[in-house]
């Protein structure tokens, strides 16, 4: 396929995957990259698995092929592992926020809780670089998505994407105290 960079995002409904996706898409647009993407809507808010596709470059379909993501961004431990195993390309990159929202089978005792090391092992099996994010003093758990964006910027995980573009995208999407708090988190 022609030159492009595929990002697959995942988490649990309610974690702010939609904002994460919109932020990265708009930042990429500000960087002059061609953007195609697609979010999960509908049932998403109801605590199920939520995913989003973002494709930068010369593609037509908004859907990242299975096992084709250059970068997997996840906001939850189990979903990070699932996405790493199903969507991450061999030699890709996984960046994830280590929140653990247990799936039902774990809560009912049918499945042992996952550990962060399980996610690392799954990523390692794909030969992936892995960045785990966990911020102790986050003022609001709904800012975990922006904490991950900060890590993406710090490590330069999306080619062509810089701080200025992310800040411009933030200014497109929020205002007032929310904008200030999230901008602060970026630094």
């Amino acid at each position, binding site marked *: 396929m022609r030159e492009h960079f595929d990002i697959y995002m995942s988490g649990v409904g309610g974690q702010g995957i939609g904002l994460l996706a919109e932020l990265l898409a708009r930042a990429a*647009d500000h960087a002059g990259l061609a953007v195609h993407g697609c979010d999960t809507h509908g049932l998403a808010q109801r*605590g199920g698995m939520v995913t989003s596709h973002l494709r930068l470059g010369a593609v037509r*379909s908004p859907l990242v092929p299975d096992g084709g993501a250059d970068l997997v961004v996840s906001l939850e431990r*189990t979903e990070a592992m699932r996405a790493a195993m*199903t969507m991450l390309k061999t030699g890709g990159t996984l960046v994830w926020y280590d929140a653990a*929202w247990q799936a039902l089978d774990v809560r*009912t005792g049918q499945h042992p*809780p996952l550990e962060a090391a399980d996610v690392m092992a799954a990523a390692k099996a794909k030969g992936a670089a892995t960045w785990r994010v966990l911020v102790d003093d986050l003022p609001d758990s709904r800012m975990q998505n922006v904490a991950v964006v900060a890590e993406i910027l710090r490590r330069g995980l999306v080619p062509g994407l810089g701080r200025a573009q992310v800040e411009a995208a933030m200014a497109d*999407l929020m205002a007032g105290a929310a904008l200030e708090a999230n901008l602060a988190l970026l630094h």
Partner: protein
Amino acid sequence: MKDMGRILLGHEAFDELVIGNTAIARAMVESGVRVVTSYPGSPTPEIAEAIRSMPADERPMYFEFSTNEKVATEVAFGAALNGRLSVVFFKSVGLNVAADSFVQLPLMDIPGGMVVLLGDDPGANSSQNEQDNRHYARMSYCPLFEPSGAADAYRMFKKAAALARELRTVVILRMTTHVCHAKEKIHFDSWNPAPPDDEPLFDPDYTNYIPLAATVFPMKRRALERLAAIEARLPSLGFDELVDNGNGQRGVIVAGLPFASVMDVLDDVALGGNTPGNEPSGARRPDVLRLGAVYPFDRAAVRSFLQTHDEVKIVEELDPILEGDIKALAFDAGLRCRITGKRDIDETMGECSPAKARAVLAAAWPDLFPAAAIPSAAPVGAIGSVAAAIAALPPRPAQMCPGCGHRSAFHAIKKALASGDITIADIGCHTLGSLPPYNMGRVLLSMGHATSTAAGLSVFNDTRRAVCFMGDSTFFHAGLPGIVNAVYNGHRVLLVVMQNGTTAMTGHQDHPGTGRNFSGDAGKISIRAALEGLGVSNIREVDAYQQAALTAMTREALEEPGFKVIIATHPCMLKFIREARRKPGWSARRVRIDQETCERIHECVEHFACPTFQREADGTVTVNPDLCIGDLSCRQTCPAAAIVPESPARSAT
């Protein structure tokens, strides 16, 4: 912060990154659409959100959420009869509800023109099936156009609306989930609004509007002649696209989003050819004919494509509709082209994603792609192969939110049931009660079916009691006839109306029981009063958090003859907390598990199963502070009374 509503009403041309649904709202503005109706259902509600974002006093169209899709269709039709360009939109299965009126529309002369905008759902992402609504176009003689992306949807809507208006008819724009939600940067044209002419134009003397016996036939003839006229104009409408790769041997015919999938995977054909040592034998990109007009389709263009290729593969999402028509066309014309379509049942199921398009093309032409890298079978931890590891991960279906009143209601009602009793689900958030650990509501057909299905289950059955569930929006949508029937025919059924004061699953739209409509305050229709008006005499009401009372009244009601209703009310807590957070002085509330008191009974985490409760490897239960909203509905479920409000203690919401 960008103001999308103002952007959508801009007079100058602009470029903006939007999803397909938002692009459609701008297309409506530019097209001069005057009346828009809908019933909320994924994947379409964001069209209404885009319309809502426009300042109300500058919004060029009237919008309403009607009580159901049939009503919405009729309102849009009536407006179009008066000369207003109208749009009705809803989800795939909404067309079943609308069908009785919808199938009549192509018979009519509609001065304003009308667009039926469908959100079909290949892959059944958020629907009870993945029905292919192209069948409805054929059975009703309604033209159907199919965009393959968000920008395409914007351009195609404008052409389709103009065509409908010019020909005084109805057309379908069939979008699918990932066209509605596809995000891309779109160039929008300028908008030069003209003052609307709202003269009511309905003229029953101009043409006949009453299809009755013999008068049906001139109307049917007109519908069929209109289809032929549209087909003749297709080359100039530019809905279709020919991708000429200079391949006289192989061609692909495709429509909708699968066009994007096919184009993406065909890029790999060239790449494979350019990779030394990985060159497929003689692989060249097939030519591609993409049909934007699907019914009618441009038979001349298809015939020409068949004539100029030795083999044509039809890559078609869901049902083999084009396949049958194209094969018939080739047969009638005596063409020698080898046409292949669906190979098996799997090709009739699911969305035609790039991965699927690749598999379908590779199966037709094994030499097309370079040998794909074999997926790594490296062990992950101690679990074994990657596939086994993926399968071993705990699934994460949607679930009821923390504090959901439905969870409380199900937990309470379940205690009142005997093991053989039968529970019937309906559509809405409470459908999630059908999943473990609740297993409440074990059969589901459609919106509003629950009361009547329960009635049937109660016939010749004096031993296993029937309890059905229905949400408040569904009650008004399609619930009333089944309730009237249960009263009229005296069915022994218990209906629990799960009233959360909103249309929750689709994004918190108002309904006739909320006291608001899209435009503002509206008369609130009381469910109790409606039930009483329908002749229901046995009605109980309870707050869904009052679990002991709900259990007791369920027990009582199940002993009583005839049709009974319990209205179990609690506001949608997702909506409630979102709104509460915006208010000044709001502070988060939570519960905690008093570990000294906790006896590891696990009622909270296993049976009440609020997602807030987490189970540690040693059996300790904790509360996830990201999830808990401190609603306290869980407190009554703990036999050891170990669930306590985090200090400072606050009262329940």
